[in-house]
C-alpha cells in the first residue's frame, strides 16, 4: 500500500492529492474521499474558527499506525491523509482522507475507520473561537468514542 500522511497548517487541494493517489493506486476500482470542513453552526454559538494543535511527530506516527491497521483489515492500494492544524476559519478544510481499493466496500469501510480514529484517538486538540470573540477548549465527545469503539468490537 502506498501511504502518505501529513499534518500541516497549509490548506489542501483535493484534486491534486487525488491525482497523486491515483498515480500510485494501481488497478484500483474504487476511490473514496472524505473532507471535513469547519462548520459555522455546529454548536449553540456561531463559530468564527477552530484552533487545532497536535504533538508533532507523535501525531503523524499514530495516524500511520492506524492506516496500517486499516490496510490489514481491508485490501487497500493507496491511502493519503492530510490533517490541518492552526487557526481554521469557518468553511475551511480540516481533514482530507483518500483511500483506493479494488472494491467499494473496502474503500468505504477503511475511510470511515480512519475518520473515526482521527476524530477520537489521534492526538489533536481543538479550541473553538466564536464570533463574539470568546473561545474555549472542546471537550471529548462520547458519541465519537462510540463510533471508534465499533471497530474494536469487530477486531
Amino acid at each position, binding site marked *: 500500500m502506498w501511504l502518505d500522511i501529513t499534518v500541516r497548517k497549509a490548506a489542501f487541494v483535493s484534486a491534486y492529492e487525488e491525482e497523486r493517489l491515483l498515480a500510485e493506486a494501481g488497478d484500483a476500482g474504487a476511490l473514496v474521499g472524505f473532507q471535513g470542513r469547519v462548520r459555522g453552526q455546529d454548536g449553540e454559538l456561531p463559530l468564527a474558527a477552530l484552533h487545532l494543535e497536535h504533538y508533532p511527530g507523535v501525531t503523524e506516527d499514530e495516524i500511520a499506525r492506524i492506516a496500517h491497521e486499516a490496510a490489514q483489515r481491508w485490501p487497500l492500494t493507496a491511502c493519503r491523509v492530510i490533517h490541518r492544524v492552526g487557526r481554521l476559519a469557518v468553511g475551511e478544510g480540516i481533514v482530507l482522507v483518500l483511500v483506493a481499493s479494488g472494491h467499494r466496500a473496502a474503500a468505504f469501510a477503511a475511510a470511515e475507520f480512519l475518520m473515526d480514529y482521527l476524530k477520537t484517538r489521534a*492526538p*489533536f*486538540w481543538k479550541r473553538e473561537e466564536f464570533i463574539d470573540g470568546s473561545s474555549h477548549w472542546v471537550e471529548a465527545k462520547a458519541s465519537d468514542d462510540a463510533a471508534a469503539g465499533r471497530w474494536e468490537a469487530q477486531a
Partner: protein
Amino acid sequence: MIRILYFGFLREALGRDEESLDWAGGTSEDLLSLLRARGDDWAAALAPDKVFRVVVDREIKRGVAEIADGAEVGILPPVTGG
C-alpha cells in the same frame, strides 16, 4: 532531568507549554503524583479523567509507563479530533 510537554487546555491551565524537571527515575504515575502535589490547580488540571495518555520519548503509552532520566514526556489531555 526530564522534559515535560503539555498540550491542549493543559497549557493554559498550567500556564506553560513545557518544563524541565529533575528526575530520579520512576513511572508515569509517579510523575503525575508529583505534579498533582504542586497545588490544587495542578491536581484539578491533571485529575485522572483529564489525562488521556502519557507519551514517553514520542511513544504513546497505554497504562503506567517507566520514565528514564533524559526522557521527553508528553502529557495529553483527552483528544478532541479535527
